[in-house]
Protein backbone atom coordinates (compact mmCIF):
# COMPACT_ATOMS: atom_id res chain seq x y z
CA UNK A 1 0.00 0.00 0.00
CA UNK A 2 1.28 3.43 -0.87
CA UNK A 3 3.17 4.83 2.14
CA UNK A 4 1.58 2.17 4.34
CA UNK A 5 -1.73 3.98 3.98
CA UNK A 6 -0.37 7.14 5.58
CA UNK A 7 -0.43 9.25 2.43
CA UNK A 8 -3.73 11.03 3.28
CA UNK A 9 -2.41 11.82 6.77
CA UNK A 10 0.77 13.31 5.29
CA UNK A 11 -1.26 15.38 2.82
CA UNK A 12 -3.33 16.63 5.73
CA UNK A 13 -0.04 17.65 7.33
CA UNK A 14 0.94 19.47 4.14
CA UNK A 15 -2.30 21.42 4.30
CA UNK A 16 -1.53 22.37 7.88
CA UNK A 17 2.04 23.40 6.95
CA UNK A 18 0.69 25.60 4.15
CA UNK A 19 -1.89 27.15 6.45
CA UNK A 20 0.78 27.88 9.07
CA UNK A 21 3.07 29.38 6.42
CA UNK A 22 0.36 31.57 4.94
CA UNK A 23 -0.81 32.82 8.33
CA UNK A 24 2.74 33.53 9.49
CA UNK A 25 3.42 35.33 6.23
CA UNK A 26 0.48 37.66 6.68
CA UNK A 27 1.56 38.45 10.21
CA UNK A 28 5.16 38.95 9.03
CA UNK A 29 3.99 41.37 6.32
CA UNK A 30 2.14 43.37 8.94
CA UNK A 31 5.19 43.54 11.23
CA UNK A 32 7.40 44.24 8.23
CA UNK A 33 5.28 47.17 7.06
CA UNK A 34 5.10 48.62 10.57
CA UNK A 35 8.86 48.16 10.99
CA UNK A 36 9.67 49.74 7.63
CA UNK A 37 7.28 52.60 8.40
CA UNK A 38 8.96 53.15 11.75
CA UNK A 39 12.43 53.14 10.22
CA UNK A 40 11.44 55.64 7.53
CA UNK A 41 9.21 57.78 9.72
CA UNK A 42 12.03 60.09 10.78
CA UNK A 43 10.92 59.74 14.38
CA UNK A 44 13.89 58.97 16.62
CA UNK A 45 11.99 56.76 19.04
CA UNK A 46 10.20 54.72 16.37
CA UNK A 47 13.43 54.27 14.42
CA UNK A 48 15.29 53.10 17.49
CA UNK A 49 12.56 50.66 18.45
CA UNK A 50 12.59 49.21 14.93
CA UNK A 51 16.39 48.93 14.99
CA UNK A 52 16.30 47.05 18.29
CA UNK A 53 13.61 44.76 16.86
CA UNK A 54 15.50 43.82 13.69
CA UNK A 55 18.89 43.51 15.41
CA UNK A 56 17.57 41.35 18.21
CA UNK A 57 15.73 38.97 15.91
CA UNK A 58 18.63 38.56 13.53
CA UNK A 59 21.01 37.77 16.38
CA UNK A 60 19.03 34.78 17.62
CA UNK A 61 18.23 31.32 16.23
CA UNK A 62 14.59 30.86 15.25
CA UNK A 63 14.24 27.83 17.50
CA UNK A 64 15.36 29.77 20.58
CA UNK A 65 12.94 32.61 19.85
CA UNK A 66 10.20 30.09 19.29
CA UNK A 67 10.82 28.39 22.63
CA UNK A 68 11.19 31.70 24.45
CA UNK A 69 7.96 33.15 23.09
CA UNK A 70 5.98 29.92 23.29
CA UNK A 71 6.90 28.91 26.84
CA UNK A 72 7.47 32.45 28.11
CA UNK A 73 4.19 33.62 26.58
CA UNK A 74 2.38 30.73 28.24
CA UNK A 75 3.58 31.81 31.69
CA UNK A 76 3.01 35.49 30.99
CA UNK A 77 -0.56 35.04 29.77
CA UNK A 78 -1.38 32.92 32.78
CA UNK A 79 0.19 35.36 35.21
CA UNK A 80 -1.94 38.10 33.69
CA UNK A 81 -5.05 35.93 33.71
CA UNK A 82 -4.37 35.02 37.30
CA UNK A 83 -4.15 38.66 38.28
CA UNK A 84 -7.37 39.41 36.44
CA UNK A 85 -9.01 36.57 38.33
CA UNK A 86 -9.45 34.35 35.27
CA UNK A 87 -8.75 30.64 35.03
CA UNK A 88 -5.86 28.79 33.43
CA UNK A 89 -5.22 29.29 29.73
CA UNK A 90 -3.57 26.74 27.50
CA UNK A 91 -1.89 28.65 24.71
CA UNK A 92 -2.93 27.40 21.33
CA UNK A 93 0.29 26.19 19.61
CA UNK A 94 -1.02 27.30 16.21
CA UNK A 95 -1.57 30.84 17.42
CA UNK A 96 1.72 31.00 19.33
CA UNK A 97 3.67 29.39 16.50
CA UNK A 98 2.35 31.58 13.70
CA UNK A 99 2.64 34.73 15.80
CA UNK A 100 6.25 33.92 16.66
CA UNK A 101 7.21 33.06 13.09
CA UNK A 102 5.43 36.20 11.89
CA UNK A 103 7.27 38.27 14.45
CA UNK A 104 10.64 36.76 13.42
CA UNK A 105 10.18 37.12 9.68
CA UNK A 106 8.63 40.54 10.13
CA UNK A 107 12.13 41.68 11.12
CA UNK A 108 13.59 40.38 7.88
CA UNK A 109 10.72 41.82 5.84
CA UNK A 110 11.23 45.19 7.55
CA UNK A 111 14.58 45.46 5.76
CA UNK A 112 13.11 44.20 2.49
CA UNK A 113 10.25 46.69 2.56
CA UNK A 114 12.45 49.56 3.70
CA UNK A 115 14.81 48.97 0.78
CA UNK A 116 11.88 48.70 -1.62
CA UNK A 117 10.38 52.01 -0.51
CA UNK A 118 13.76 53.74 -0.70
CA UNK A 119 14.15 52.48 -4.26
CA UNK A 120 11.22 54.64 -5.39
CA UNK A 121 12.47 58.02 -6.59
CA UNK A 122 11.51 60.79 -4.17
CA UNK A 123 10.36 63.02 -6.98
CA UNK A 124 7.38 60.75 -7.60
CA UNK A 125 6.03 61.30 -4.11
CA UNK A 126 6.62 65.02 -4.45
CA UNK A 127 4.82 64.97 -7.79
CA UNK A 128 1.91 63.20 -6.13
CA UNK A 129 1.79 65.85 -3.46
CA UNK A 130 1.94 68.59 -6.09
CA UNK A 131 -1.13 67.05 -7.75
CA UNK A 132 -2.93 67.42 -4.45
CA UNK A 133 -3.09 63.74 -3.57
CA UNK A 134 -3.55 62.87 0.06
CA UNK A 135 -0.95 60.84 1.92
CA UNK A 136 -3.21 57.79 1.60
CA UNK A 137 -3.60 58.23 -2.14
CA UNK A 138 0.15 58.58 -2.59
CA UNK A 139 0.66 55.39 -0.60
CA UNK A 140 -1.99 53.46 -2.51
CA UNK A 141 -1.36 54.76 -6.02
CA UNK A 142 2.35 55.48 -6.11
CA UNK A 143 4.25 53.75 -3.36
CA UNK A 144 2.58 50.35 -2.94
CA UNK A 145 2.41 49.29 -6.61
CA UNK A 146 6.08 50.11 -7.18
CA UNK A 147 7.20 48.81 -3.83
CA UNK A 148 5.85 45.38 -4.75
CA UNK A 149 8.20 45.20 -7.72
CA UNK A 150 11.27 46.12 -5.70
CA UNK A 151 10.29 43.92 -2.77
CA UNK A 152 9.57 40.69 -4.66
CA UNK A 153 13.12 39.25 -4.78
CA UNK A 154 13.70 39.77 -1.05
CA UNK A 155 10.16 38.69 -0.32
CA UNK A 156 10.64 35.43 -2.24
CA UNK A 157 13.77 34.68 -0.26
CA UNK A 158 12.10 35.28 3.07
CA UNK A 159 9.08 33.22 2.10
CA UNK A 160 11.27 30.26 1.16
CA UNK A 161 13.20 30.48 4.43
CA UNK A 162 9.93 30.76 6.33
CA UNK A 163 8.30 27.69 4.78
CA UNK A 164 11.32 25.70 5.86
CA UNK A 165 11.27 27.28 9.32
CA UNK A 166 7.70 26.05 9.91
CA UNK A 167 9.25 22.59 10.31
CA UNK A 168 10.60 23.78 13.66
CA UNK A 169 7.06 24.24 14.93
CA UNK A 170 6.74 20.46 15.17
CA UNK A 171 9.17 20.72 18.10
CA UNK A 172 6.67 22.75 20.14
CA UNK A 173 3.93 20.29 19.28
CA UNK A 174 2.23 21.76 16.24
CA UNK A 175 0.56 19.15 14.05
CA UNK A 176 2.39 19.98 10.82
CA UNK A 177 3.86 17.81 8.09
CA UNK A 178 6.99 16.93 10.12
CA UNK A 179 4.85 15.91 13.06
CA UNK A 180 2.79 13.64 10.81
CA UNK A 181 5.98 12.08 9.47
CA UNK A 182 7.21 11.52 13.04
CA UNK A 183 4.00 9.68 13.93
CA UNK A 184 3.97 7.62 10.76
CA UNK A 185 7.64 6.67 11.20
CA UNK A 186 7.06 5.53 14.74
CA UNK A 187 4.29 3.12 13.81
CA UNK A 188 5.58 1.78 10.49
CA UNK A 189 9.32 1.69 11.26
CA UNK A 190 9.96 3.16 7.83
CA UNK A 191 11.25 6.60 8.86
CA UNK A 192 13.33 7.26 5.77
CA UNK A 193 10.34 6.75 3.50
CA UNK A 194 8.31 9.36 5.34
CA UNK A 195 11.02 11.95 5.85
CA UNK A 196 12.00 11.64 2.20
CA UNK A 197 8.36 12.05 1.21
CA UNK A 198 7.89 15.24 3.16
CA UNK A 199 11.26 16.52 1.93
CA UNK A 200 9.89 16.03 -1.59
CA UNK A 201 6.71 17.88 -0.68
CA UNK A 202 8.68 20.80 0.77
CA UNK A 203 10.73 20.87 -2.41
CA UNK A 204 7.55 20.95 -4.49
CA UNK A 205 6.19 23.86 -2.46
CA UNK A 206 9.42 25.87 -2.76
CA UNK A 207 9.66 25.14 -6.49
CA UNK A 208 6.09 26.26 -7.14
CA UNK A 209 6.70 29.38 -5.02
CA UNK A 210 9.81 30.30 -7.01
CA UNK A 211 7.93 29.89 -10.30
CA UNK A 212 4.87 31.87 -9.18
CA UNK A 213 6.81 34.73 -7.61
CA UNK A 214 9.11 34.88 -10.64
CA UNK A 215 6.05 35.25 -12.84
CA UNK A 216 4.67 37.92 -10.50
CA UNK A 217 7.93 39.84 -10.63
CA UNK A 218 7.83 39.86 -14.42
CA UNK A 219 4.21 41.06 -14.32
CA UNK A 220 5.06 43.94 -12.02
CA UNK A 221 8.12 44.87 -14.09
CA UNK A 222 6.28 45.03 -17.42
CA UNK A 223 6.63 48.79 -17.60
CA UNK A 224 10.32 48.76 -16.76
CA UNK A 225 13.01 48.58 -19.42
CA UNK A 226 15.97 46.34 -18.64
CA UNK A 227 19.45 47.69 -19.25
CA UNK A 228 20.79 46.27 -22.50
CA UNK A 229 24.50 46.36 -23.13
Amino acid sequence: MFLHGYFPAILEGLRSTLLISATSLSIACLFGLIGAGAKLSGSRMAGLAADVYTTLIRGLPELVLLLLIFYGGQIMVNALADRAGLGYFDINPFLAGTLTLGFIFGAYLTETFRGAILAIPRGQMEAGKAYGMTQGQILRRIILPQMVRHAIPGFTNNWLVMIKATALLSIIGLDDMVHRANLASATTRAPFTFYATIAGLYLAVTTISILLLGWLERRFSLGVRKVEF
Partner: protein
Amino acid sequence: MIDWALIAESWPLYLNGLKISLILMAISVSASFLLSVPLAIARVSRNPWLSKPVFLYTYVIRGTPLLVQLYMIYFGLAQFEWLRESMAWPLFRNAWFCAWLAFALNSTAYTTEILAGALRQTPSGELEAARSLGMSTATIYTRILLPSAIRRALPQYGNELVMVMHATSIASAVTIVELTRTARDVYYNHLAPFEAFGLVAVFYFVITFALVGLVKLLEGRFLRHLRPMSIPSKAA
Protein backbone atom coordinates in the same frame (compact mmCIF):
# COMPACT_ATOMS: atom_id res chain seq x y z
CA MET B 1 11.22 38.84 39.07
CA ILE B 2 14.27 37.19 37.55
CA ASP B 3 15.63 34.21 39.44
CA TRP B 4 19.33 35.13 39.55
CA ALA B 5 20.18 32.17 41.76
CA LEU B 6 18.93 29.81 39.05
CA ILE B 7 21.05 31.61 36.47
CA ALA B 8 24.15 31.42 38.67
CA GLU B 9 23.48 27.77 39.34
CA SER B 10 23.01 26.75 35.71
CA TRP B 11 25.80 28.96 34.38
CA PRO B 12 28.37 26.10 34.15
CA LEU B 13 25.87 24.02 32.16
CA TYR B 14 25.52 26.85 29.68
CA LEU B 15 29.28 27.22 29.33
CA ASN B 16 29.48 23.55 28.52
CA GLY B 17 26.64 23.95 26.00
CA LEU B 18 28.49 26.86 24.45
CA LYS B 19 31.54 24.69 23.99
CA ILE B 20 29.48 21.98 22.28
CA SER B 21 27.75 24.52 20.00
CA LEU B 22 31.03 26.07 18.95
CA ILE B 23 32.62 22.67 18.26
CA LEU B 24 29.59 21.63 16.20
CA MET B 25 29.80 24.84 14.22
CA ALA B 26 33.57 24.58 13.69
CA ILE B 27 33.53 21.01 12.40
CA SER B 28 30.50 21.68 10.16
CA VAL B 29 31.89 24.87 8.69
CA SER B 30 35.35 23.46 8.00
CA ALA B 31 33.93 20.42 6.23
CA SER B 32 31.51 22.49 4.18
CA PHE B 33 34.21 24.95 3.13
CA LEU B 34 36.51 22.16 1.95
CA LEU B 35 33.67 20.55 0.00
CA SER B 36 32.25 23.71 -1.49
CA VAL B 37 35.45 24.94 -3.18
CA PRO B 38 35.59 22.06 -5.71
CA LEU B 39 31.79 22.06 -5.99
CA ALA B 40 31.72 25.78 -6.78
CA ILE B 41 34.31 25.25 -9.51
CA ALA B 42 32.13 22.49 -10.94
CA ARG B 43 29.06 24.69 -10.60
CA VAL B 44 30.49 27.45 -12.81
CA SER B 45 31.95 24.97 -15.28
CA ARG B 46 30.75 25.15 -18.87
CA ASN B 47 30.43 21.37 -18.91
CA PRO B 48 26.79 20.56 -18.04
CA TRP B 49 27.83 17.12 -16.77
CA LEU B 50 29.70 18.93 -14.03
CA SER B 51 27.50 21.94 -13.34
CA LYS B 52 24.03 20.36 -13.52
CA PRO B 53 24.51 17.71 -10.80
CA VAL B 54 25.94 20.34 -8.46
CA PHE B 55 22.99 22.60 -9.19
CA LEU B 56 20.59 19.73 -8.47
CA TYR B 57 22.36 19.09 -5.17
CA THR B 58 22.25 22.72 -4.00
CA TYR B 59 18.67 23.10 -5.19
CA VAL B 60 17.37 20.07 -3.30
CA ILE B 61 19.26 20.91 -0.12
CA ARG B 62 18.25 24.56 -0.19
CA GLY B 63 14.63 23.67 -0.90
CA THR B 64 14.11 21.40 2.12
CA PRO B 65 14.23 22.13 5.86
CA LEU B 66 17.43 21.31 7.73
CA LEU B 67 15.38 19.63 10.47
CA VAL B 68 13.99 17.15 7.95
CA GLN B 69 17.46 16.50 6.51
CA LEU B 70 18.74 15.80 10.01
CA TYR B 71 15.82 13.46 10.76
CA MET B 72 16.39 11.65 7.46
CA ILE B 73 19.98 10.91 8.43
CA TYR B 74 19.59 10.28 12.15
CA PHE B 75 16.23 8.51 12.35
CA GLY B 76 15.69 7.61 8.70
CA LEU B 77 18.76 5.59 7.79
CA ALA B 78 17.95 2.97 10.45
CA GLN B 79 15.30 1.75 8.04
CA PHE B 80 17.90 0.09 5.81
CA GLU B 81 19.00 -3.29 6.98
CA TRP B 82 22.13 -3.39 4.82
CA LEU B 83 23.32 -0.21 6.53
CA ARG B 84 22.51 -1.52 9.98
CA GLU B 85 24.62 -4.58 9.25
CA SER B 86 27.49 -2.69 7.70
CA MET B 87 30.71 -1.43 9.25
CA ALA B 88 29.48 2.17 9.04
CA TRP B 89 26.51 1.62 11.34
CA PRO B 90 28.24 2.72 14.60
CA LEU B 91 28.81 6.07 12.85
CA PHE B 92 25.21 6.54 11.70
CA ARG B 93 23.90 5.58 15.11
CA ASN B 94 25.90 8.41 16.63
CA ALA B 95 24.02 11.70 17.02
CA TRP B 96 27.20 13.74 16.70
CA PHE B 97 28.17 12.15 13.43
CA CYS B 98 24.66 12.58 12.02
CA ALA B 99 24.40 16.20 13.10
CA TRP B 100 27.81 16.95 11.68
CA LEU B 101 26.93 15.26 8.40
CA ALA B 102 23.59 17.06 8.10
CA PHE B 103 24.98 20.50 8.94
CA ALA B 104 28.03 20.06 6.72
CA LEU B 105 25.98 18.86 3.73
CA ASN B 106 23.46 21.65 4.26
CA SER B 107 26.03 24.40 4.61
CA THR B 108 27.96 23.04 1.62
CA ALA B 109 24.98 23.76 -0.60
CA TYR B 110 24.72 27.39 0.50
CA THR B 111 28.49 27.99 0.51
CA THR B 112 28.80 26.48 -2.96
CA GLU B 113 26.25 28.93 -4.33
CA ILE B 114 27.96 31.86 -2.58
CA LEU B 115 31.38 30.90 -3.95
CA ALA B 116 29.99 30.19 -7.41
CA GLY B 117 28.37 33.63 -7.42
CA ALA B 118 31.68 35.22 -6.46
CA LEU B 119 33.53 33.25 -9.14
CA ARG B 120 31.09 34.48 -11.79
CA GLN B 121 31.82 38.07 -10.79
CA THR B 122 35.48 37.71 -11.71
CA PRO B 123 36.41 40.56 -14.07
CA SER B 124 37.05 38.89 -17.43
CA GLY B 125 40.28 40.86 -17.82
CA GLU B 126 41.84 38.98 -14.91
CA LEU B 127 41.15 35.65 -16.55
CA GLU B 128 42.41 36.86 -19.94
CA ALA B 129 45.59 38.24 -18.38
CA ALA B 130 46.24 34.96 -16.59
CA ARG B 131 45.68 32.98 -19.80
CA SER B 132 47.91 35.25 -21.82
CA LEU B 133 50.67 34.66 -19.30
CA GLY B 134 50.37 30.98 -20.15
CA MET B 135 49.11 29.83 -16.77
CA SER B 136 47.54 26.38 -16.62
CA THR B 137 43.93 26.06 -15.55
CA ALA B 138 44.98 24.74 -12.14
CA THR B 139 47.33 27.67 -11.61
CA ILE B 140 44.67 30.13 -12.74
CA TYR B 141 42.28 28.75 -10.16
CA THR B 142 44.71 28.62 -7.25
CA ARG B 143 46.47 31.91 -7.94
CA ILE B 144 43.86 34.14 -9.56
CA LEU B 145 40.26 33.00 -9.45
CA LEU B 146 39.90 31.43 -6.00
CA PRO B 147 41.80 34.00 -3.94
CA SER B 148 39.81 36.88 -5.37
CA ALA B 149 36.48 35.01 -5.37
CA ILE B 150 36.87 33.96 -1.73
CA ARG B 151 37.60 37.56 -0.81
CA ARG B 152 34.55 38.84 -2.67
CA ALA B 153 32.43 36.13 -1.03
CA LEU B 154 33.49 37.21 2.44
CA PRO B 155 30.48 39.40 3.38
CA GLN B 156 27.96 36.76 2.30
CA TYR B 157 30.05 34.01 3.81
CA GLY B 158 29.86 35.87 7.10
CA ASN B 159 26.07 35.61 6.91
CA GLU B 160 26.40 31.91 6.21
CA LEU B 161 28.59 31.48 9.32
CA VAL B 162 25.89 33.13 11.43
CA MET B 163 23.27 30.87 9.81
CA VAL B 164 25.28 27.76 10.69
CA MET B 165 25.75 29.00 14.24
CA HIS B 166 22.00 29.43 14.55
CA ALA B 167 21.38 26.10 12.83
CA THR B 168 23.38 24.24 15.46
CA SER B 169 20.43 24.87 17.79
CA ILE B 170 18.58 22.22 15.75
CA ALA B 171 21.01 19.59 17.07
CA SER B 172 19.00 19.86 20.29
CA ALA B 173 16.37 17.74 18.52
CA VAL B 174 18.71 14.73 18.34
CA THR B 175 19.93 14.48 21.95
CA ILE B 176 23.06 16.63 21.61
CA VAL B 177 23.31 18.81 24.70
CA GLU B 178 24.42 22.04 23.08
CA LEU B 179 23.25 25.52 24.13
CA THR B 180 19.59 25.16 23.17
CA ARG B 181 19.24 21.67 24.65
CA THR B 182 20.82 23.01 27.86
CA ALA B 183 18.22 25.76 27.97
CA ARG B 184 15.41 23.29 27.29
CA ASP B 185 16.65 21.03 30.10
CA VAL B 186 16.87 23.94 32.52
CA TYR B 187 13.38 24.96 31.47
CA TYR B 188 11.93 21.48 32.03
CA ASN B 189 13.59 21.15 35.42
CA HIS B 190 12.62 24.56 36.78
CA LEU B 191 9.76 25.75 34.53
CA ALA B 192 11.45 29.13 34.31
CA PRO B 193 11.25 30.04 30.60
CA PHE B 194 12.58 33.59 30.87
CA GLU B 195 15.68 32.59 32.79
CA ALA B 196 16.32 29.45 30.73
CA PHE B 197 15.76 30.87 27.25
CA GLY B 198 16.69 34.46 28.06
CA LEU B 199 20.16 33.41 29.15
CA VAL B 200 20.68 31.25 26.09
CA ALA B 201 19.51 34.16 23.94
CA VAL B 202 22.24 36.32 25.45
CA PHE B 203 24.80 33.64 24.58
CA TYR B 204 23.65 33.41 20.97
CA PHE B 205 23.49 37.17 20.67
CA VAL B 206 27.07 37.57 21.84
CA ILE B 207 28.38 34.83 19.53
CA THR B 208 26.46 36.23 16.57
CA PHE B 209 27.87 39.70 16.97
CA ALA B 210 31.34 38.38 17.72
CA LEU B 211 31.13 36.52 14.39
CA VAL B 212 29.84 39.60 12.59
CA GLY B 213 32.67 41.67 14.10
CA LEU B 214 35.25 39.07 13.12
CA VAL B 215 34.04 39.02 9.53
CA LYS B 216 34.10 42.85 9.46
CA LEU B 217 37.73 42.74 10.59
CA LEU B 218 38.57 40.21 7.89
CA GLU B 219 36.76 42.36 5.31
CA GLY B 220 38.82 45.36 6.38
CA ARG B 221 41.94 43.31 5.88
CA PHE B 222 41.13 41.42 2.70
CA LEU B 223 38.78 43.77 0.87
CA ARG B 224 40.82 46.91 1.42
CA HIS B 225 41.48 47.19 -2.32
CA LEU B 226 37.74 47.30 -3.06
CA ARG B 227 36.95 50.18 -0.74
CA PRO B 228 35.75 53.31 -2.52
CA MET B 229 38.49 55.94 -2.79
CA SER B 230 36.36 58.66 -1.30
CA ILE B 231 32.99 58.19 0.29
CA PRO B 232 30.35 60.19 -1.54
CA SER B 233 28.26 62.28 0.82
CA LYS B 234 24.92 60.73 1.65
CA ALA B 235 22.97 63.96 1.90
CA ALA B 236 20.63 64.32 -1.07
